């Protein structure tokens, strides 16, 4: 499987992981704030909205000059290094059809010798695919290049296991970590005499020592 940067050099692993981190953070924040009346559908909608907002916020911050918004509506398409990117929840085996419809021609694919049996090189769309577990937790986040007939031609697994959003500030303020220095040890000025522990008592001598088996 090709890496995205092999097809498009603007799609570096670092950039993909940076945006991936934003998406996972946004999703986790939604899961953390789930209310008792939420269900999978409402949480999914909020997660989509929060992820979009998180990316928009990152664009506004100016911290990532290679990140921009192409379509800020509910279709939400952003770009990494000028390349359009979408996102969907689910796994890459079943990509969302509306995502595939956004595939555009990718002449660069010719050089890889793929699709030699086809008359025309297929169109490609780039997207994040977030897979979640029964508890709503992120199981995997993949950045994939999909052809317009749903085949994955390039993939980057974003290392989600290493991502953990920080606890809320109120939590941090109230419970500062307890940090102690190592227990102090120093040389005695006058050596202490031996304790009575070195003297054997009659009781100890008489204690049963029945361990002849070992």
């Amino acid at each position: 499987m090709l890496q995205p940067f092999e097809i498009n050099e603007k799609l570096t692993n670092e950039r993909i992981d940076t945006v991936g981190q934003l998406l996972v953070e946004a999703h986790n924040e939604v899961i953390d704030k789930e209310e008792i009346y939420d269900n999978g559908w409402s949480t999914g909608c909020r997660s989509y909205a929060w992820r979009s907002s998180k990316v928009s916020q990152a664009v506004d911050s100016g911290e990532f000059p290679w990140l921009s918004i192409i379509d800020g509506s509910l279709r939400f398409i952003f770009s990494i290094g000028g390349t359009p990117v979408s996102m969907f929840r689910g796994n890459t085996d079943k990509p969302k059809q509306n995502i595939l419809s956004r595939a555009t021609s990718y002449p660069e694919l010719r050089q890889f010798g793929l699709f030699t049996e086809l008359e025309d090189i297929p169109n490609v769309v780039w997207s994040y695919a977030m897979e979640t577990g029964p508890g709503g937790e992120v199981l995997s986040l993949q950045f994939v290049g999909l052809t317009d007939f749903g085949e994955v031609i390039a993939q980057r697994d974003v290392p989600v296991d290493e991502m953990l959003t920080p606890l809320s500030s109120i939590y941090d303020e109230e419970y500062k970590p307890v940090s102690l220095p190592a227990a102090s040890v120093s040389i005695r000025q006058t050596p202490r005499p031996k304790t009575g522990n070195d003297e054997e008592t009659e009781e100890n001598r008489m204690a049963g020592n029945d361990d002849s088996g070992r």
Partner: protein
Amino acid sequence: MNTPEFFGDSLRIARLTSGISLQELGERVGTTRQYLSQLETADKKPSADLLDALSFELGVTPGFFSRAIGNTVKDEECHFRKLSSVPMYSVRECTARITLVHKIVDALGQHLELPQVNFPDFGPIETSLDAAIAAKRCREYWGLGKGPIESVARVIEHAGGVITSLGDISEKVDALSVHRERPIIVINSKKNSPRLRFDLAHELGHMVMHKGVESGCRDTESQADQFASYFLFPQEALLTSYRPSSRISWQSIKQIKVKWGISMRAIVFRLRQANLITPSQYRTANITLSKKGSRSEEFDDLVIREKPELLRNSFELLGETFGSSFGGIFERLGISRQIIGTLTDTSDLLMNTQWETNDNIVAFPSQVT
């Protein structure tokens, strides 16, 4: 000519520490197990040659046998975590080793100012609730506040406790503690970080709740677990760190794990206790954690690993002050530095060539461990 005294108990402790059976030792020194048994238990003395052979095989000086071992540690003095499943010979090997650790610590105390022993006594404990209260009071007693404790080992060592893993024996006996004038905790350092922290807090629980109480039964172990859980993660913190919802928040559980250094399973148990998750969520959570390939060990490496320092720092100070003689502690104890290194997890330090100054080094018989 007066022959030196011979103490069978000292032979027994040295043999058990080395993990050698009477039969095996007999074969090595050319005598019978019955005779060795008599040496250990009856008022008999070995010949000078046999004494040398025993000292060679057991890594102690002949003089070690002519000194009373003192107050040996008894099985019932130890709070074994899993006494019922530990073979008796491992228990004896362990208590023998702890007896020597006591002697080593006592010898260290002759040259060094060690932390003063200061453990509160919250016993007797009757219920799990008492244990949770004891955990809270323990934090208050030492002024630890309500936050995550970065190092439980340091808390214990500040209070004068000694922590070691006794070499490989701790893998057989899990964790245990002995409550003498200066308490000793034995840990299994192979465990993952959250588990190691929990074990230390569990043994601390025994120290402050079960003084003079024979532990190992379900009640005392469950009380020590309860203590550990509340000591590491106070109830107030639990209530403010988790928001109940229709689904289990694994993200919150992971955050709690990293912040407080407590396993996901322990957190899930506490969430149920506090009624923050439903019985059905508790069941689902445990199934998820038990599933093959579950992520229950996730973020273990983000939890600060507990590292006992008191014994290591003590030997380091002796090395810096006295060079490779370490103030003559090995000769005074009559135990080789290899064995002392194993018992105190300081082999690398004691055998390090950096201490090889021009002071006198008394040779020991070649090592048996």
